[in-house]
């Protein structure tokens, strides 16, 4: 059975790109979220094996979403998606419970390496 993933990003472009990378690696995309609030709701509903989380999103950012998800499920595997120059925010996200991060622009190999580390 393939692993399930929830993709959280406010940009359709980024969701599609991350989705393609993960689909090619055999993941099943069970949900997509455009806001932090949606991300938390969908996580509770879908219980995916993996979450990719953008940091900056409207209506509750990625960091708060991670915090909520982690307090709901400490075992949640959240991979942060960050832009260059956001190290402080990534640090915060990790302290909030994210397991790893990738930096845009995404390289498929780097994304998959990070995913493997998160799921290891």
């Amino acid at each position, binding site marked *: 059975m393939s692993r399930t993933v929830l993709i959280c990003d406010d940009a359709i472009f980024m969701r599609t790109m991350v989705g393609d990378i993960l689909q090619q690696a055999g993941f099943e995309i069970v949900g997509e979220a455009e806001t932090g609030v949606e991300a938390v709701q969908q996580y509770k509903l879908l219980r995916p094996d993996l979450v990719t989380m953008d940091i900056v999103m409207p209506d509750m950012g990625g960091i708060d979403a991670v915090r909520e998800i982690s307090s709901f499920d400490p075992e949640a595997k959240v991979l942060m998606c960050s832009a*260059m120059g956001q*190290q402080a925010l990534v*640090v915060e996200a*990790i302290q909030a419970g994210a397991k790893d*991060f990738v930096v845009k622009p995404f390289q498929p190999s780097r994304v998959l390496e*990070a995913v493997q*580390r998160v799921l*290891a």
Partner: protein
Amino acid sequence: MNSARYAELFLSESREHLSAVNDALLELEPGRPPDDAVRSLFRAVHSMKGMAGAMGYSAVTELAHEMESLLDGLRSGDCVVVDGTTEVLFAAADCLEDAVAAAMEGADGSVDCSAVIGRLRSLSMGSVPDSDQSAEPGVPCTNQGADDAWFVEVAQAPDTPLRGVRAMLVVRKLESIGDVLEVSPTLAELQAERYDDRFAVRLLARPHVDAAAIAQAARSAGDVASVEVWMPGERPERAAGPSPQEDVLVLSSMSAATASEESGEGGQPVEFRPQANRATRSVRVDVRHLDSLLDVVGELILARGRLRESLGTALTHDARSALDHLSRLVGDLQTEVLSARLVPVWQVFDRFPRLVRDSARSLGKEIDFAVEGKEIELDRSLLDEIGDPVVHLLRNAIDHGIETAAERLAVGKPRRGRLTLSAIRDRDAVLLRVADDGRGLDRPRVVRRARELGLLDEHSQPDDEDLVKLVTRAGFSTAERVTDMSGRGVGVDAVEERLRKLGGSVEMRTSAGKGMTVTLRLPLTLAIVRALIARVGDEVYALPASHVVATAEFTAARSRTLRGEAVLLLGQDVLPALDLRTLVGMPAGDGAERELVVLEAGDRRLGLVVDELLGEQEAVVKRFDLVRGALPCFSGATVLGNGMPALIVDVGRLLT
């Protein structure tokens, strides 16, 4: 993975560590700065302790622990190397080897290490280790618990995105297996990326977390180029012995080239670059797999031969090119399998410095021992066989060749004798050479013995070469073992015997008063040889091509009888002659159109007369032990391309 597999890994790594221990102990003499030697000793013993602990071999663990405590004291300067330290550690190393062997046989704890542990402890306590517990209190050798924290140094991959955050992830991973006491530079500096892609962590690891586990945890954070893990005072150096990285990658072994490439980085800490690593990654394989793989390749070569033979010349162009392709592939496979079986000679050589040192010491001789060509490779099965002969030759040189310091000074030689063991690659052979600068062959005794045996007349004065020929002559050394008395050359016949079995030969050179050199010539592999196929009557025999010097047409004009012996004239040379028919007990042929093969082993030659030469072939050697009464001039058998069996002629034996 099962426990048997772990046990094998444990055993093979323990051997490497024990070898490193013995090496390092040779460096550890009173008065010398102990740093490097002590550090490599500590590392090796520490690794063994960790492995034995993981295997549950408590006796091995305990002994390793006691050794480690003493070494830790030496390392920190709480203890010093005194007369006897080295001896006790040597004894402990021997005991450790025995304990490992016992543990492997399921009898952990059956070796009594209590005496040596007592001596180790009294040394740790700072007392002089006289044979028994002379419990004279000295400076105790303390082991501070606070010093139990590991140093972990991490180098990040170049171009790591958000490397400061990544570094933090590394620290978090380490926090999951112990307490992080210190991060340098600080976490804040790391996050601000005010560091140059390298940082260090002091980690008080949880129990049973070893260096390998620590390195693995650090790597699991991602984008880590290298990790070094060490205990205080034990900064790893690439050149000496296994380092934590090799613990991590149990399956990795660094080639000499990579090692030197890495050490070429000046003062920089050792790198473990992913690329270099990939080039030298290796897997431990049970040698039995290699043996059966080689058997299969052997069968494949036979099958190829049969296929060629049965298809004959009636082949389409396509079929021929397919067959050629197949042949090349089989050849490539053979090369690969044979090279996979090669192991560097240091695996055997590394125990010799210890042996030489011990023997020299017990005889009160001063000897400088050098080993050259450690990296030369030899087939695994051969390497197992050459240990004894080489030990034999080294012992000979030490016991009988090299003189005492007083004797040497009296004849104007340097006080310390020189003994060299070298491995040299020579085309499809490997030479192992033992050379000393001692007194050489005992001329008067050899001459006297030769005269007694009637091999030498009263007045002739043999030169050095004649002496060697006399000594190695069949029946000479065995007749009364002159060499047992003179010492020099004891059992050279035994060495020759062994080498012949392996398809090799022995050469000796001596110069009275100046020393002696014995060279063992070995084939690269035992399993497959190129052979010249010879026919007599309707039987075929295989002559190993490495011994074939020349072939020629045999004519009656070449044949002579000299002092009752058949000889052949070949150009300027006069060779002893032998008819293969005579050798195998076949009646003499009609004498028409026969052929001649010149065989050579060591510096001896022989002309072998055969009915016909059928060309060269790869011969897959099936060795056999000679049955009583069998002709002793064959070393094995092979199956030819046409399916016919053929005996392989033992050229070395023919020529003695």
